[in-house]
């Protein structure tokens, strides 16, 4: 089984690249014997000196492991050896050359998505407590929005709002801060759901995407097959486009793409008319 395994492994390594695994005098004792058949190089070809130094460090760590009292030096002892090598590792292997034509999007210093690794409902606890301590007698209305799936979620600088569409079971999220006008939002929404609808209609299609997509347009002007509505902070359902953009952004809680034919069934309220009957 072993020889079959390693044969399979080596098959996957492109012919022109070679791993050079230099065995030191102690041999590599951890893991299975398959590694001995593997040839591994630590850095790009040509950096032979680095390899010896690194492996030297590795073997000295291994021999340290055998002497219990030497294993992990207590804090008072000098770590300088380890620190120097660690630094050289970091220096030499940190920056991989980037292949040409790759998007640079990941080098931008944006707030890190998904870090620190906590669930959404743990994100705003400090601010919630401030509000609670200021008014301990107030009943807990919609003060905390950290777990409200309908409330906008601010991840770093974005303003993410949930958007659902009739006929599509799973909602998506859009970042309203990415747009500065109703037009841009409408285009983005159209593109977002065209793809989803197409995938739903024929999930095993493997032709080019464009043929299957039917563009979703006219969500704002009442002429298209679909219309964009939203729910504001008072729970009212409104037509998108009625109020100035910045007012919309500050009051929107969630979006919905409805079939225009369904609009008459639902009574929409506008800020001028006051409270409405919610569907």
């Amino acid at each position, binding site marked *: 089984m072993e020889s079959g395994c390693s044969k*399979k*492994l080596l098959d*996957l*390594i*492109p012919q022109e690249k070679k*791993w050079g695994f230099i065995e030191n005098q102690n041999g590599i004792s*951890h*893991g*299975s014997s*398959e590694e001995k058949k593997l040839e591994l190089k630590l*850095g790009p070809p040509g950096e032979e000196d680095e390899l010896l130094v690194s492996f030297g460090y590795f073997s000295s760590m291994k021999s340290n*492991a055998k002497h219990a009292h030497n294993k*992990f030096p*207590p*804090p008072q002892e000098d*770590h300088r050896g*380890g*620190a120097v090598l*660690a630094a050289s*590792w*970091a220096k030499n*292997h*940190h920056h*991989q050359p980037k*292949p040409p034509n*790759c*998007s640079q*999007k990941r080098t931008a210093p944006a*707030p*890190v*998505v*998904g*870090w*620190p*690794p*906590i*669930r959404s*409902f*743990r*994100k705003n*606890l*400090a601010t*919630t*407590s401030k509000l*609670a301590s200021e008014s*301990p007698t107030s009943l*807990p209305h919609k003060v905390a929005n950290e*777990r409200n*799936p309908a409330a906008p979620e601010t991840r770093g600088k974005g303003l993410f709002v949930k958007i659902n569409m009739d006929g599509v*079971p*799973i*909602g*998506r*999220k859009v970042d309203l801060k990415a747009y500065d006008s109703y037009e841009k939002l409408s285009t983005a929404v159209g593109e977002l759901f065209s793809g*989803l609808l*197409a*995938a739903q209609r024929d*999930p*095993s299609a*493997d032709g080019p995407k464009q043929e299957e997509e039917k563009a979703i347009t006219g969500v704002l002007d009442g002429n298209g097959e679909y219309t964009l509505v939203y729910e504001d902070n008072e729970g009212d359902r409104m037509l998108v486009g009625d109020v100035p953009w910045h007012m919309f952004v500050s009051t929107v809680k969630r979006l919905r793409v409805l079939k225009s034919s369904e609009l008459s069934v639902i009574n929409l309220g506008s800020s001028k008319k006051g409270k409405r009957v919610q569907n």
Partner: protein
Amino acid sequence: MQKKMAYSFPDEVLEQVFSFIQSDKDRNAVSLVCKSWDEIERWCRRKVFIGNCYAVSPRMVIRRFPEVRSIKLKGKPHFADFNLVPDGWGGYVLPWIAEMAGAYPWLEEIRLKRMVVTDESLELIAKSFKNFKVLVLFSCEGFSTDGLAAIAASCKNLRELDLRESEVDDLSGHWLAHFPETCTSLVSLNISCLRSDEVSFSALERLVGRCPNLRSLRLNRAVTLDKIANILRRAPQLVDFGTGYYAAELQPDVFSNLAGAFSSCKELKSLSGFWDVVPAYLPALYSICPRLTSLNLSYATIQSPDLIKLVSHCPRLQRLLVLDYVEDSGLEELASSCKDLQELRVFPSDPFGAEPNVSLTEQGLVAVSLGCPKLRSVLYFCRRMSNAALVTIAQNRPNLTRFRLCIIEPKTPDYLTLEPLDVGFGAIVEHCKDLRRLSLSGLLTDHVFEYSGTYGKKLEMLSVAFAGDSDLGLHHVLSGCESLRKLEIRDCPFGDKALLANAAKLETMRSLWMSSCAVSFGACKLLGQKMPKLNVEVIDETEPPDSRPESCPVDKLYIYRSVAGPRFDMPPFVWTMGEAVRILH
């Protein structure tokens, strides 16, 4: 075949013997003994656990195990909890329910984690399984209170309804009223994730009052403090209770009513909830504190002195979840008062603040490691750490089985020496020989992976972020960690070499997640072509991976073993690497 088996036990006897074997691993071993054992075993297997819903198809499960009564399914990868898996990726339970509706009419239990559950699925469950008893939806989404109403109305023998940490479209609190007056079977009800301000409280009270076997009840935030006493008096047999908001203006009669209600719950061992706590009401709990084994205060924004007072009343505490308001001083108190402590989780109160807002450092964890001999499981968020502290913790607590440390700022070095934290984490994997789960953070080089591969022989799940220098790091883990089942990596400079060289290893694991790493599209395609038993999914929400050169790294990669082949429910931003000719999409 029967001639050969003349000397063995009759099937019925073997079935009876097998019925004492409950663990999946043992059951699987039994089925490997011989063909007849396999045959007998598959007909009497009642419980199935499927760790990845895409590893196998519903039909395959049904074909092999025709008489299942209880199923547990997991969907999205763990990093979905932190918004790294885009909405719409997958994990739909409906196809499973649809198949099981026909094949398992006597299905009693469905437990789901990180799956998309629609109202349609819930309605189908309600209609299809006449003896349905247990529904657990852990971190699920996609359904509303309408679906819950269907479950409540139809499931005559419902024992457990647990919605922990799920995202529910809260349309109305009236779904609770759909439990018929004849429903008295509830043992566990967890609605803590619901946001509705209008939970039908009277319906809830009546439901609680008529279920004499109710052992676990977790309310949601809409239930105010003054209502707790009424609920508790109707269910003094509760073992586990989750409050709603625990805040109100201090009134002596409300307080004494509450304290009296708690003290009448002689079996109460576990408390949770506590959104917005008014510390003055905490002493109402003192009568039950001596019996408490589990306390979840991880939403309670109370300060260290109040936490210390409470914790010092709980000598039997085994499990504590708390915010970092507990501070080092609170943890030192915990270490001296709670000698039975097995699990500690400390969450950040201000995760995005640049500066520490509380005095919680590595010292608190060191104190607990020293004072609590039974400590096995740790989840700790802090802002500084040292190798010395980690070495001390490792030497104090070699019995750790789960160690998850999150130093909030990525790549933070040892604050005393400014070195990487390799040696510290190395001590953890070396000393804690039964370590099954490890999360790394801070400044880390390839060395920490070398130690993990060398010593982490029992390691089953490893989470890595912003660590390592080269492919060698990944290679150490994949080649050394023999028990590895789940590996999740983000923002590490790991590329093609280690992945391709250890391709066979991936078939022995449940899954591998890599995002913002350096694995090229070409390598993903190669892996997908050469390894038919792996599903290699490339996830990219901005543009298709083939619109760039093959050498470009993919944004997100999710690889999992599967006997079901590639799935067909993928959204437009997920591509499965398939045969050499085309990419399945």
